[in-house]
């Protein structure tokens, strides 16, 4: 953190400058790489070696995205996808943390859920998608359900591991100072486990997005994945690539926001220092 800057030594000052130069070089290289990628895409698509269907030029794709944004379709699809993915992710987060906390406190609950989690975690749960469609239909409920089903497991395992790793001394001192079980959970155990819980959430978030997109592709309807599928059915290749770019941007922003949130929430923790 910035507070130690007062007594900075010449040696660290120099390495500070070289670190800054390095950062400049790296961000320059980053911009360069991404620009090269876009230019290569454009040139390759226009070279005549591939058909317009196989790879529409980037400018055409960008035009498609702008047109969708103007007509409002983009915003409807975006809102629907985000609503279902984030609602499912929210349920998985709250439910996963709650269940894992209960498991760490009540032995019967632990006994019941432990084998289910250890078998369920590595399973490809997306295979159950047709079963969920069979039960709940093809609307929002079933899409949110599969998102919860898939993204709850990383939250559960991370929370369980985080709680198990809480230092015994912390618990002893809190108990010694008269904390009851409730206070212990809310003021000691969960905060101490929060770095690992947040890691679990950071694993679960991309899973929620991946699964939401798959669910939309299988079930159809509104949403960024659904729109991609519709475009694909009508052999509208710029529409498909526009969907890819849109989904990539959404994924990128969500993951950055999550990382920022982590730094904010763990400002007290040594990892952010």
């Amino acid at each position, binding site marked *: 953190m910035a507070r130690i800057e007062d007594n900075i030594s010449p040696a660290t000052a120099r390495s500070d400058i070289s670190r800054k130069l390095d950062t400049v070089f790296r961000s320059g290289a980053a911009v360069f790489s991404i620009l090269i990628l876009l230019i290569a895409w454009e040139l390759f698509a226009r070279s005549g070696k591939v058909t317009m269907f196989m790879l529409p030029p980037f400018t055409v794709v960008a035009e498609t995205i702008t047109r969708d944004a103007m007509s409002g379709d983009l915003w409807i699809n975006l809102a629907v996808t985000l609503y279902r993915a984030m609602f499912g992710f929210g349920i998985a987060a709250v439910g996963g943390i709650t269940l894992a906390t209960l498991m760490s406190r009540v032995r019967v609950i632990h006994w019941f859920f432990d084998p289910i989690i250890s*078998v369920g975690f590595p399973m490809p749960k997306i295979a159950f998608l047709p079963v969920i469609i069979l039960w709940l239909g093809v609307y929002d409920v079933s899409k949110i359900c599969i998102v919860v089903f898939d993204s709850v497991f990383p939250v559960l395992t991370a929370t369980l591991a985080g709680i198990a790793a809480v230092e015994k001394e912390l618990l002893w001192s809190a108990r010694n100072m008269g904390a009851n079980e409730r206070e212990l959970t809310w003021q000691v155990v969960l905060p101490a486990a929060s770095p690992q819980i947040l890691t679990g959430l950071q694993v679960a978030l991309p899973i929620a997005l991946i699964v939401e997109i798959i669910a939309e592709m*299988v079930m159809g309807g509104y949403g960024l994945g659904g729109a991609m599928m519709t475009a694909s059915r009508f052999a509208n290749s710029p529409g498909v690539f526009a969907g890819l770019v849109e989904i990539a941007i959404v994924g990128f922003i969500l993951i950055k926001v999550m990382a920022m949130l982590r730094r904010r929430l763990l400002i007290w923790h040594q990892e952010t220092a």
Partner: protein
Amino acid sequence: MKSAALRYLPLLLLALLWEALARSNIVDSLALPPLSKVAVSWIDLIRDGELVDNGAVSLYRLYAGLGLAIVIGGALGMAMARWRTLDAFVNPLVQLFYPLPKSALIPVTVIWLGFGDGSKILLIFLGCMIPVTIGAYNGARGSEQVLVWSARSMGASRLRMMWDVVMPSALPELLNGIRTALALAFILMVSSELIAAQQGFGYLIGYLGSTGAYEAMYAVVLTVAFLGFAADRIYQLLMQWLLRWRE
């Protein structure tokens, strides 16, 4: 033995609950066929070869894609960790593609390579490459500079040094990256086959579901779930064996 039985008892209870619910008239037996009937149709599926044929296609796609991702992603990650210029230019692209929900590539790979094996292998390769690359990269960055210098000064070529020094020290993180990739490969395999395929587990699940053969559909779903679980367990054993030289 007894403790293992007690540990996995909840799974048995779930199975019994499933059977009881399906046999009672509380839920529609079409929506939830009894587990025993699912087992019977599983044997039928094995006997007429449908499950084995489609399964072989699926597993071939999965391991071909994953294998390519391990070789290319692993080499790329280690090379990035050793050569700073390569790192400066390739890392931004890795960062850019890392958060992409990989399932968005499904229609794109279909446009490129059609409905067959090629598009699935490409999809699984692209999806799995990023976690493997990041694992190899983080692992190789942690390899001790002193060891690299000693190997070089004793006359090891750059390639030799990569294989003998960087690779072993990158191994734990690389193997963790591959574990993530393995789980992702199963997800991409099933979902791409559900969406656009004429063969494979996912296709079979979709086909059986659309013809109303729900008992058989459940049998395939459970088979895929079990295979994913088993693959992870076997991989964990392999990981332990490969890392047995560590204290």
